């Protein structure tokens, strides 16, 4: 499955890049993340839960960042597996200044296998879209927060943020 899209965040690229490569902040932002730990330079171990249609499962694996050119570009390689199958993905993330904010452009390829691939194929791209929106929405909230402020994320927050953005 190919995924691609654009998302604009009202925060400068430097700050966005910082969060995108900070395991603690990123762990809070990525929906379903249970654990994201730096294991070696630019490599993290990841435990995550995700649901596609009726298939809800937990996955474990690694996230690797590569080709890092702060604050404008990096490549992300994700490999996770669990009882409900495996997910392998590779994507390019580009950050560009747009006014006071940042336009994030992402494109990549996701490969899925096992039960997660066999069920609700039509739901995959919408699930990917939803998760991406949740991720970037959370990053924006994280970036705007005052230092030390605890930011809450989740489905309800995401909906509230989306509604707020649409109003603006």
């Amino acid at each position, binding site marked *: 499955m190919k995924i691609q899209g654009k998302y604009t965040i009202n925060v400068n690229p430097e700050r966005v890049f910082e969060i995108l490569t900070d395991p603690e902040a990123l762990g809070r932002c990525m929906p379903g993340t249970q654990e994201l730990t730096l294991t070696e330079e630019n490599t993290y171990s990841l435990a995550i839960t995700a649901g596609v249609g009726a298939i809800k499962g937990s996955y474990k694996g690694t996230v690797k960042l590569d080709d890092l050119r702060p604050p404008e570009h990096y490549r992300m390689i994700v490999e996770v597996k669990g009882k409900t199958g495996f997910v392998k993905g590779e994507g390019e993330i580009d950050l560009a200044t747009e006014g006071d904010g940042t336009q994030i452009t992402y494109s990549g390829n996701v490969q899925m296998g096992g039960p997660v*691939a*066999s*069920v609700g194929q039509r739901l995959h791209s919408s699930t990917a879209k939803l998760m991406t929106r949740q991720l970037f929405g959370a990053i924006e909230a994280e970036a705007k927060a005052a230092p030390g402020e605890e930011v809450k994320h989740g489905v309800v927050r995401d909906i509230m943020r989306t509604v707020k953005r649409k109003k603006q």
Partner: protein
Amino acid sequence: MPISKTVGARIKRREDPRLIQGLAQYVDDIKLVDILHVAILRSPYAHARILSINTDTARSHPGVVAVVTGDDIKDKLGTVPCATTDPEGFPGMKVPPHYCLAVEKVRLVGEPVVAVVAEDKYIAQDALDLVEVDYDPLDAVTSSEDALAEGAPILHEQFGTNQAFTWSLAGGNIDAALAEADKVVKQKFVHQRLAPNAIEPRGVLANYEAGDGQLTLWSSTQIPHLLRTQLSVMLGMAENRVRVIAPEVGGGFGSKLNVYAEEGLLGYISRELNRPVKWIEGRRENMMHTIHGRDQTGDVEVAVKNDGTITGLKYTVMADVGAYYQLLTPAIPTLTGLMLCGCYRFQNVAMNLTATFSNKMATDAYRGAGRPEATYLVERIVDCVAHDLNMDPLEVRRKNLIGADEFPFTTGTALAYDSGDYTTALDKAMGMIDYDALRKEQAELREQGRYLGIGLSTYVEICGMGPSAAMPAGGWESSTVRVDPTGKVTVLTGVSPHGQGQETSFAQMIADGLGVDIDDVKIVHGDTEIVQYGIGTFGSRAMAVGGAALHIAMEKIREKANKIAAHLLEANPQDIVMDDNMYFVQGNPDNALSMADISTTAHVGVNLPEGLEPGMAETHFFEPSNFTYPFGTHIAVVEVSADTGEIEIKRYIAVDDCGNIINPLLVEGQLHGGIVQGLSQALFEEVVYDEGGQMLSGSFMDYALPRAHHFPRFEMDNTITPSPVNPMGVKGVGEAGTIGSTPCIVNAVVDALKPFGVGHIDMPLRPEKIWRLMQ
């Protein structure tokens, strides 16, 4: 066979009350003390090397009793059998080992890799998560074309190729026919892959008892006896120490005419642990790892004369048989070859088949098994001929149909059609519609931008399987008829019905033939310890072959009853008649005996004719002399929406001939279900794998099954041409609907789209595909 009291009557299925009240026992309903549950870890990869399997954590999980891998079983448990690998039939065939759990490599998504045995099924499922398998993924092959491409990943490396086998068939001289033809009509046809989807998935319960060294295995199977033989080989056990029971079986459609890895595996695990073990297949497992059907792609060329006479047909085809063979995998496309002449007269025919391995589930028998493919391509190409010659499809058919006076007819493929009257069936179906008026309406509607289509299918199929000489493992069938001292009758039949209704139709035959009440007849099947060896229920054979065995065993009882009655009534056996359930000397009905009177005498044993054995039990093993060939004409009237591409079936007419009919209600039921399944292939169903070999149609959200509202009320009638092959003159009806209906609806839709220059559309006819063609 004359219609008497019950035979020929619309008697409701006697098995239904227990089924609809939840009183039936399926495998999962059977509970044994100390039972363990098995869950199976399946490959998420279509093609990968297994680098390592770590089962330590799973083994130490509380409640887990054992964890079994391919390495554990590869030298101790036989491989999954294939009955059709005869080198004479398939020279040069590659036969890969098919372990019950993957060894070294996995070759399809869903392949069993590890079995976890636990105290309950939830623990077993949870523990699957704790097994770590390290795979090295390999590129996958998902079509015949890719399989044979240069540099393609090889599934079974020892062969150096993905070509599984080739097979060819020739009759007459096809090359001469094509060379001499006025016109050669060509079309490529794709028979998409289908999933059988029996309402009850598979399930196995195995119980090894160390005391007497006996394994009892309950399985949702169509072939308990064949399974017993194969299990004894796989497990290295004496066959008389293996008992297979097919309890209530919730449908099969051919998918349970097989021996599966899980059956061998459960037998093995139970014997190792000396405890009963159960595994019940999930719906997603069923989609992935119960056999699929069809998956042929081929080119048809027919030689025709300008007047529409077909002189020959050539079929060059690739069959994508999946990663491993199941029981009958290689045989299925050969059945397509046998039926390539359809109900037509032409004698020049050839088929060249190349079967290839791919990273998909094995194909095998699915309702019709090879014959729907034949009927589809024959009936479609006849319409293509009509299209190319600008003739009416009806006229092309009339020109080529074998006449009623030509039977027994030997086809170009050397089959001897037993009996038939194709024109009468066609005429009867045409009589149910006003063809000329429909064509006129079609022309008028086209003016208004509405698209009506009329499709025909005049099919013949091969059933009543079959003479043993033409079958991989016996084609005969068995029956025992026993009468108790009190006159109640028990039938032990070697067929194993699972929805066909033989508990009703066989009882009807006994009620009439022996003069007993239908409620006094019990039909027993599916337990190899109780029932004499039999072959099973498939290939529309239960009545045509199993019923024939029953009929002859019953005749033996009847003869004995006549002898005893004659003795008691002091007459000659040939003067005994039976009427209204009483036996008496012709002309003297006042002095009559019931079957109970006669059977009591037979069992008491003191007042029997000189030399007659006591008791009342007879067995017959029936060997049919030929297959049977049911046939018919189906007509579909459809309207295709120009706005949405949706197909509305406005009318569906089916005139079928399955020979004599024991129970019209059962015959209609089989035809209804069959027609729906055939139409569903044409309109909805398709198993889809992506390029990586991942199954994208793994649930009912993605694999479209039909619903009642998709279809109109079928308008049905029949003709009756008795078969000379069995004493009842029946032909079999289990697959007829599926075989006849698929091309009928495609022909109708292609006919509707004629104004758009459409000459062919590959199935399934999804609205999106149709709509694009109309733009």
